[in-house]
């Protein structure tokens, strides 16, 4: 397996809170890798470090063999790492299609933006194609702020896809979404994966993770605890400890939440 995205020995503290403690994670090319763990175990921080939103205090991020540790988010996106956010973020006061167009040219010089129009024919076609893929094509001219929560999730996925990144990081794609839509999203992910896209997914919904992931990494208190196939992870005593952890009430709640 070729390693596409890799975090090596990453640490990051916020004040006195050590959010990541020499955490390592590998995403193989063509895989769907799951990242699970109790709330506050550092999953989103690791996402932020890997996409350039947060600088690590220590450690290295490699993409396709290149060191991208302190690169800004736009650079990392231009290289081919797209992500969605846990709390879905779209551009609410422009139209759905314009949302898509923001991402179409992932590596265009900023001066070029001054002299060209918003979209070329081919970009518009690509944007419509991806909107169609997630089932939002008929809403293309609507203001994005009027979309429902689930539609926003799909739009966010679509505009990350339109830039054709090599690896896509999804932060809780199934969070707060109804069952039908969860199935729809997992089908889309599997279809895209067949087409060659690599995924890294943070998710609390265990059923979802176990169904679609090839490999799962469990995080606990800022460290990567166990990595393995879904079946291995499910039966690992360490994971059971982390989640159910004897008398720790908080951990119990986390499983209930999932």
């Amino acid at each position, binding site marked *: 397996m070729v390693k596409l995205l890799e975090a090596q020995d990453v640490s990051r503290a916020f004040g006195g809170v050590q959010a990541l403690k020499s955490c390592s994670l590998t995403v193989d090319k063509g895989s769907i890798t799951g990242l699970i763990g109790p709330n506050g175990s550092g999953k989103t921080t690791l996402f932020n470090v890997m*996409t350039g*939103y947060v600088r690590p205090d220590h450690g290295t991020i490699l993409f396709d063999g290149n060191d991208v540790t302190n690169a*800004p*988010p*736009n650079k990392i*996106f*231009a290289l081919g790492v797209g*992500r969605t*956010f846990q709390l879905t*973020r*779209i*551009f*609410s*006061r*422009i139209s759905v299609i*314009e949302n898509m*167009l*923001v*991402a179409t*040219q*992932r*590596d*265009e010089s*900023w*001066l*070029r*933006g*001054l*002299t*060209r*129009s*918003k*979209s070329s024919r081919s970009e518009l076609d690509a944007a419509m194609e991806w909107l169609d893929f997630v089932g939002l094509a008929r*809403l293309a001219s*609507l203001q994005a702020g*009027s979309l*429902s929560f689930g539609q926003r999730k799909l739009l966010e996925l679509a*505009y*990350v896809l339109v*830039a054709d990144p090599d690896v896509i990081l999804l932060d809780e794609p199934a969070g707060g979404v109804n069952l039908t839509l969860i199935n729809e999203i997992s089908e889309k992910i599997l279809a895209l994966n067949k087409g060659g896209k690599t995924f890294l997914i943070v998710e609390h919904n265990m059923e979802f993770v176990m169904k679609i992931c090839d490999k799962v990494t469990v995080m606990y208190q800022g460290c990567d605890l166990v990595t393995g196939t879904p079946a291995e992870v499910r039966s690992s005593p360490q994971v059971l400890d982390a989640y159910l952890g004897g008398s720790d009430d908080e951990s119990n709640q986390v499983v209930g939440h999932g």
Partner: protein
Amino acid sequence: MSKLKPSLWTLALVVFAIFPLIVTNPTFTTIAVFTLLFMACTTSWNMFSGYSGYVSLGSAIFYGCGAYTMALVSTHAHMAGGEAQFWLVPLAGLVAMVVAIPVGAVALRVRRHTFVVITIALFFVFQLLAINFSFTGGAAGISLPLIPWLFNYYNLPFYYVALGLVIFATLLSAGVRRSRFGLQLLAIRDDEDRALGLGVRVTAVKLTGFTMSAFTIGMAGALYAMFIGQIYPQFVFDPTFDITVALMAFFGGFGTLLGPLLGGLILESSQQYLTLTFTNGSLYLILFGVLFLLVILFMPQGIVVRVSQLWAQRNRRRETPLTPDAVAAMGVGH
């Protein structure tokens, strides 16, 4: 952006073009020149602040720099007052742009509300510099070369150059709105970090927009200096200019194309008229203060958006009375 038809834009342009030929009274054409200057400045301000959501209260920095460029160059080069001075207008715009680069680089390091405060602070730095430097003439200001034009002709060239600035600013603003760059500014307004994560070079885009908007404002400042013939630091680096430009844009329609034009047209002409009628230069400040409050409270999107909403509502009510089916159909869209 604006739903106005091209024919209406053309009609407006014709009205503006023939206005000084019909209304020849210098009192009114003077008001008209000031009004056009503010329309140009507000449109240009809106091109950055309205699209990106970064409200700048330091636009007088560029107005002042433009005015001083006109005053200093025309006096030091011993120019005779007259048409030749108009060539300095674009030069003043360029100087304002050069000034805007470091100003923007400092102010744009911070986000939103902090940005507003920094622009105000930088504005006062410039005002103090203009008052205290000797080459600016200090508080006594600078007298520009006298322009030997006849009393009833004097306003005419200024009117048309100012109209040219308005057209330039409007076309530039419309062009930006249609470009990829403009889309990036709007994306920054809605969610800057998300835009960054989609490959938008936010710092470069913001600084470019900020610098571009300084160009027309600088040119307007230069034209103002030439028109008045005498500048003082407290009148070209004027804090009420900062606020007036923002108010005009909010009043007309923040982030729209037509809004700043209407805001400038309505507010500047009425301000000039009030000052003239009541011979009281401070009355308008009180009225503008009240108006600003009312606009922010009752129509924060500005008159253009509000009126088009009301218009759409009225048409809808008239064409299709609401049936349960229609209500259901509307619900589907959400």
